[in-house]
């Protein structure tokens, strides 16, 4: 049972982004200004400083759920500003 490819990624793939804080590289995709997906690697997870802080994992429940890294979020926004990461909403707009 092989999982098929997300049709949305065929339309617009993920791009590498480096975190400005820890240097970890992830793949990111911004569907809109408020919609982001991030593919981490084991190396990136191990490098992330916020992820290592147990307070960040316990904030929403008693269990180990780390919702996201604020430094990485900032770097992704920066990558959009620098033109390194397209926002799908806007690329689709200009295409029509």
């Amino acid at each position, binding site marked *: *049972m092989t*999982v*098929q*490819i*997300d*049709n*949305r990624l065929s339309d617009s793939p993920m791009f590498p982004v480096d975190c400005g804080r820890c240097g970890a590289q992830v793949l990111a995709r911004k*569907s*809109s*200004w*408020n*919609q*982001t*997906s*991030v*593919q*981490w*690697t*084991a190396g*990136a*997870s191990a490098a992330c400083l916020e992820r290592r802080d147990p307070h960040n994992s316990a904030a*929403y*429940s*008693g*269990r*180990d*759920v*780390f*919702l*996201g890294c604020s430094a990485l979020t900032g770097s992704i926004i920066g990558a959009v500003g620098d033109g390194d990461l397209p926002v*799908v*909403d806007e690329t*689709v*707009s200009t*295409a*029509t």
Partner: protein
Amino acid sequence: MYNNDMTLQSNTDEIREIDAAAAPTRFARGWHCLGLAEAFGDGKPHAVNAFGQKLVVFRSDDGAINALDGHCRHMGGDLTQGEVKGNEIACPFHDWRWGGDGRCKRVPYAKRVPRLARTATWITSAQDGMLFVWNDPEGHPPPPELTIPRIEGATSDEWTDWHWYTTIVNTNCREIVDNVVDMAHFFYIHGSLPTHFKNIFEGHVATQYMTSSGRPDLGGTEGARMLGTTSVASYYGPSFMIDDLTYHYENADHKTVLINCHYPIDANSFVLQYGIIVKKSEALPSELAMETAVALGDFVKMGFEQDVAIWKDKARIDNPLLCEEDGPVYQLRRWYEQFYVNVVDVTPDMVDRFEHELDTTSPREEWMKVVEANLAGRSVAEVI
């Protein structure tokens, strides 16, 4: 911004076909909750149809709860119709005695037990009032890091007891797991109004973080009474979800823990269970808290019945056609796949962290039109 031209941008006349391989006949590796432990604690054998087999579950005199294959290796007698004798289950056919370790301990009419007199067993664990079994087609013991987390409220006097439901659903269990990412169905099927929606998959844990607002237009329901909910729900492994779920009301927040778990009967049916505990508070003293647990339980039950109504007739689909406002269905299934392959075949993409935060702006604009139309007692068509 999207406009109508763009949603019609596809320039091909090709028909999109639905792909669907048969549901897997292999069953997921992981801890599965069979229900409340007290249901198995009466010293009688209990039949559990799970993992394509019939299991016998019984508490032996030493207090352990044991899970064995339900059929005697002697002549195939049904152990679930047998009797617990001491620490063993006795077959109703010829009284062969099987221990919790799966070994035949005694054949009362024989001088000795034959060699190879061993049957299949499942490792069990009773925790927080629930009974779990470890299923692994490869037969390895459960790694400690996969232990189901403790639920603090479950053993605390500050919380109610479990309010528990069990029901059988006649479809493959992938359908219920898909709900983790299906933001839009929470509006269309369950009448909630998601305001924030994020998924995180990492290791063996898949999380859904969701806030939602109430549905003032759905009079007479919990959805109308509450202002909204905050929910952090995680699957720990393939089948056991713990949801820290807070209901926000005008005068108070009600903290609850909702368990949503299942175990497969076979490839095309599963037992769905859900349990609720509610935290007692000044606003919710003991009795009222239990009433709230029951009321919220009924509300959750209604929600699952709404899902079941869809699952009953929907097609299995391996290639869902997604819009940007849908959740990460493919990435969830990639995560879920780790439980259906041998441990050595688990690939990094199944377990590496993946995050998906949804933009709820566009869905909410649409759904608020529906809410407002309902409140005004008009059809949506009149409003738009």
